[in-house]
């Protein structure tokens, strides 16, 4: 039995979400191979080769794989799919984009966003925005799975897998990359940060996020937002934490001026410690918070910055 994990990366470094998928692959059992598809992504292949438990890294490199568009990924993975009992990718926007294409071509079900491996053919996944957890047993011979990165331990370094080169497919004629606008920030990425501080509709405006950013800079934290704050235009969409945004599970999550809609809770309730600052003591966010502070955020957040300063941050 063997399992293929498709690596998430930006051609320069391996995304930690891949480590979670490798851990899930280990729980399914068998030899683990990691596919690194990209352009000039040798460093990523080398990083993948060091992952604990990985036997072989397959490296396909070409212009066509630069942005890992779904059509090219389908062609590439289908060429090698025969050899594997399960094909996994992290449930990032990349994996969510190309994995169902592969599943359809293999005529198997898509098993999305698993949070646990119960048996090699049985998995738990959230439905209804995480309000219910469904355990499913696959009847298909081959499993195509995306893995929720926050619920699996991240595989460490310690392996020394062989790297094999794989022929890259020709670019698909029907789709091509035009441009990308990625948010630039010195702060850590939301999905990977140890501390996240998020603002909601209570922030009142985009400018007011400055007080949150100051705290974030002291703590080395990532800045997030609720869907309400994003829809109100305070911050860009990639700040969004929630079922339809990013799912995060940091050591510490600080929710500021966020009421705690189900949508938002689904994206952060697996955080280790949750702090809520809200002036409405009835806000549902307090029902999941380990520490709740009923206060005006415009007083409390600057005070938090000051207290952190006193504490040596």
């Amino acid at each position, binding site marked *: 039995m063997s399992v293929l994990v498709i690596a998430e990366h930006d051609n320069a470094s391996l995304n930690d979400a891949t480590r979670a998928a490798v851990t899930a692959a280990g729980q399914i059992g068998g030899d683990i191979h990691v596919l690194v598809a990209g352009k000039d992504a040798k460093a990523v292949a080398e990083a993948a080769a060091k992952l604990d438990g990985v036997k072989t890294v397959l490296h396909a490199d070409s212009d066509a794989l630069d942005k890992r568009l779904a059509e090219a990924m389908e062609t590439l993975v289908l060429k090698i799919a025969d050899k594997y009992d399960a094909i996994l990718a992290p449930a990032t926007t990349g994996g969510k984009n190309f994995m169902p294409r592969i599943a*359809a071509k293999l005529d198997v079900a898509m098993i999305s966003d698993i949070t646990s491996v119960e048996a090699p053919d049985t998995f738990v996944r959230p439905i209804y925005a995480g309000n219910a957890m469904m355990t499913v047993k696959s009847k298909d011979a081959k499993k195509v799975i995306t893995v929720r990165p926050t619920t699996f331990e991240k595989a460490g370094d310690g392996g020394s897998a062989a790297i094999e080169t794989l022929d890259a497919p020709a670019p698909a004629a029907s789709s091509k990359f035009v441009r990308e606008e990625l948010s630039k920030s010195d702060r850590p990425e939301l999905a990977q940060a140890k501390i996240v501080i998020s603002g909601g509709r209570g922030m009142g405006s985009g400018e007011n996020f400055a007080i949150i950013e100051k705290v974030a800079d002291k*703590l080395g934290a990532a800045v997030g937002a609720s869907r309400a704050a994003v829809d109100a235009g305070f911050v860009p969409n990639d700040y969004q934490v929630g079922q339809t945004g990013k799912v995060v599970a940091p050591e510490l999550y600080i929710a500021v001026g966020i009421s705690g809609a189900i949508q938002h809770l689904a994206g952060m309730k697996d955080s280790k410690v949750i702090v809520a600052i809200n002036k409405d003591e009835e806000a549902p966010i307090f029902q999941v918070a380990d520490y709740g502070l009923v206060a005006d955020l415009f007083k409390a957040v600057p005070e938090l910055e000051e207290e952190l300063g006193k504490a040596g941050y």
Partner: protein
Amino acid sequence: MKILVPVKRVVDYNVKVRVKPDQSGVDLANVKMSMNPFCEIAVEEAIRLKEKGLAEEIVAVSIGPAQAQETIRTALAMGADRGIHVTADAGVEPLGVAKILKAIAEEEKPELIILGKQAIDDDTNATGQMLAALLGWPQATFASKVEKEGDGLNVTREIDGGLQTIHVSLPAIVTTDLRLNEPRYASLPNIMKAKRKPIDAKTPEDYGVDVAPRLEVLKVAEPPKRQAGVKVESVADLVSKLKNAGVL
């Protein structure tokens, strides 16, 4: 250009679902049902393309129980021209849905199929991509902007870390993300008019598709509950408690 818009009937966005005590599923008795919000965005986008003169006809398709007709009527009231209802149990998996839609696409020959990126019941996020694969068409998922460009479309996609724009040739599949548009409400005259728009009645057998599920649901359980913690009196108190908890 003809646009096909598949729509799904799901539990209304505002309903907090309850898991059945026997863990066989969620309790859908007497629960308000609506069109999946991402599907509404898909219908709206199709109508806007028609209003811009880029499309001539919009066909709404739903695969589901008898009541899925209401969901098609909603799409017709918003501005779709006609409907196709494929009667099936509520539990058809994305692969089965994609196979039926492939057969419909081969009959109808649309140049564009717009779908919601995911249904808010099973949250699978797969039907559009699967349909694209089965048809051999390009896909532009998680769209926040759709523009005509040359003979194809430029689609801006919401990806981790920002936005990505890709060009796809037609025919193509687009799946919608939240910020693509704000769907309109149907006006009363349009709701009345929609009652006279035609809906074809079909079955999966008409398309020769086997919709037997590939996944056996062993159980549906409540998620682990978080216990509410304590209220702190001041920011200083908060910082000292966080230090004691070892997260600062």
